[in-house]
């Protein structure tokens, strides 16, 4: 995976490669009792149509910077330790992970609140666009 940026236990990565969840979650420190992850997975159907694969377009430099603004904001707003985000772009197959975020905290309430806010901001602000390709060979930007 390419170009991780790290400071103060926050990382953001935009990658063309398969996300290795075990490696991503594995490097956490034992000062946090609660580890919460969210994975976005490419679904095999949407709006009643059968999805074959998807393509993510991305404004890469901005996604990296906006991602850093988001995770740093979460780290400031909530009592959490690590806040990490990786988004895959390019072509993905059904069942593959497009987004993985991890939040660790001493207490689970903080971790849950922070990760919900984080995923909400990612979906609202990260300059990434999804095109679904359907079994009938049509495709559509969402």
């Amino acid at each position, binding site marked *: 995976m390419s170009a991780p940026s790290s400071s103060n236990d926050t990382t953001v990565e935009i990658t063309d490669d398969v996300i290795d969840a075990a490696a991503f979650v594995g490097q956490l420190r034992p000062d946090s009792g609660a580890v919460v992850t969210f994975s976005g997975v490419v679904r095999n159907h949407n709006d009643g149509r059968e999805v074959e694969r998807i393509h993510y377009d991305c404004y890469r430099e*901005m996604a990296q910077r906006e991602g850093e603004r988001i995770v740093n904001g979460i780290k400031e707003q909530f009592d959490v330790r690590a806040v990490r985000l990786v988004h895959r772009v390019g072509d993905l197959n059904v069942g593959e992970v497009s987004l993985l975020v991890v939040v660790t905290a001493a207490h689970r309430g903080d971790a849950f609140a922070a990760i919900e806010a984080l995923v909400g901001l990612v*979906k609202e602000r990260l*300059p990434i*666009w999804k095109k679904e390709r359907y079994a009938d060979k049509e495709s559509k*930007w969402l």
Partner: protein
Amino acid sequence: MKVDVLLFAQLRDAISADHLELEVEDGTTVSQLAEELMASRGDERVRGLPLRYAVDETFVSDDYRLRDGDSVALIPPVSGG
């Protein structure tokens, strides 16, 4: 003055370019730029598409006034995650 316009997703498809160098008048706002571009180059796939704007990889408001050399991205509704 000159600005660089970055296009993504359905805008890139509709305009058949991933970026354009455009000559604009002093005082033009990002939303005016987008309106003119949609009128001249857009098609039915993107007309009425709600847009946000970014300059220097940072969201700006609709009434941001472009400066010479700005790199402005037109941001269709995002759908990452």
